[in-house]
C-alpha cells in the first residue's frame, strides 16, 4: 500500500507528465478548482464567525424565519425549516460554520481531502433542503463529486505523507 501511495509522487515528474499530458492537465485543473473551492468555503466560514454564528446563533434563526415568509407553505423546505432547522438553530449554526471551516482547510492543504469534500457535500445538501437552493449550487455539487471521486490529496497535500505513515487509514486516501 505504501508503494501505491508513493506512486502518486510520480505525477509531478517530467517523465510522467510527458507520458500523460492530458491527465496532467486534468490534475492541475482539479487542484486549481479545489483551491478556489476551499478559498470560497474559508471566506464563507470566516464571515460566519465574524457575524457571530458561533456566539450569537440567533442570527441564523432570524434568517430561517425570514426565509419562511418567502417559501410556499406546502414546500418540503418549509417543513424542514419548521421542524428541524429552526428548533435546532444553534446546532445548525455550529455545524455549518465549523463544517465550512473544516472543509476549507481540508481541501486547501489536502488533509483528509475526501472526508472534507464529504462534509462540504453534506452542507450543500442541507442548504438545498432548507430552501437555499439556486442554480449556483450546481457547479458546487459537481465540484464536490469530483473531489470525492479522485484522491487529489495524494497528488498534492498532506494526505500523501499521512497515508504513507498510516497506510491502513481511510482518512487520507
Amino acid at each position, binding site marked *: 500500500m505504501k508503494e501505491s501511495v508513493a506512486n502518486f509522487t510520480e505525477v509531478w515528474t517530467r517523465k510522467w507528465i510527458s507520458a500523460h499530458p492530458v491527465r496532467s492537465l486534468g490534475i492541475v485543473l482539479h487542484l486549481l478548482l479545489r483551491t478556489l473551492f*476551499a478559498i470560497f468555503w474559508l*471566506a464563507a466560514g470566516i464571515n460566519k464567525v*465574524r457575524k457571530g454564528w458561533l456566539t450569537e446563533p440567533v442570527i441564523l434563526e432570524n434568517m430561517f424565519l*425570514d426565509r419562511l*415568509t418567502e417559501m410556499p407553505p406546502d414546500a418540503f423546505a418549509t417543513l424542514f425549516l419548521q421542524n428541524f432547522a429552526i428548533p435546532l438553530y444553534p446546532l445548525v449554526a455550529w455545524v455549518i460554520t465549523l463544517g465550512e471551516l473544516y472543509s476549507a482547510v481540508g481541501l486547501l*492543504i489536502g488533509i483528509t481531502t475526501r472526508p472534507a469534500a464529504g462534509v462540504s457535500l453534506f452542507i450543500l445538501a442541507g442548504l438545498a433542503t432548507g430552501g437555499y*437552493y439556486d442554480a*449556483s449550487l*450546481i457547479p458546487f455539487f459537481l465540484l464536490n463529486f469530483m473531489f470525492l471521486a479522485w484522491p487529489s490529496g495524494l497528488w498534492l497535500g498532506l494526505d500523501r505523507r499521512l497515508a504513507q505513515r498510516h497506510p491502513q487509514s481511510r482518512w487520507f486516501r
Partner: protein
Amino acid sequence: MISTTLIRWRLALAMPLMAAVLFAGRASAQVNIDAYRDYFLVGQFGEVCTMCEVTVICAAGDTPPDATAVPETGSFTLYDLQTRTFWSQISTIWEWFIANFSPAPLAARGHTRPAHVYKVEEGRWAPMQVVEARLVLDPGVLEFGAASINRVTREWLDASTGKHLGYCERLPLWDTLDVIAQHTARGSDQ
C-alpha cells in the same frame, strides 16, 4: 538536510494557504448591506435573494398605498418580481467573489430579473406584461422599463421624464399571488 523536493512541496502547499488567508481577510468586505438596509425591498439579509419572488403595488397619490392586500377596486399597478434566471443565478458565484474585493461596482450594476406587470384600471385587469427589472443599490432604484421606483423614498416615477407617478409598497407574497392567479384564470376564461 531538507531536500529541494520537500521545499518545493511545502511551497506548493503554503502558497494557496497564504492566498486564502489574504483573501479571507477581505471576507468582511462584501457589499455593505448596512448602508442599504432601509432601502425598499432590502431585507435584514440584503438584496432580494436569487430564488425569492416579491410583489409590489404602486398607485397614484402623495402617500404610499395600503399594503395589507391587493385592493379589489381602484387603479394601481402590480409588479411581480420573479426569481433570477438560470444564468443569472450561476453568475452569483462570480458576484460573490467580486464583492469580496470591491462591492461598489456590484452595488452600482445591480442585477436583472424578469418581472410580471399587471395594470389595473378601476378594477379591470389588463393582460400581463413581462419586463426586465433591474434592481440597483447605488443609486437605489428599481427599473421596470417605462417606470421606476426610488428605493429610498419609495416614489414611483416615470423612467424617461422622472415625473412623479405615485408611491409603492411591498405586498404579502402568497396572498397576492393567489389574487393574481384568480384574475389571470378569470382573464383566460373570458
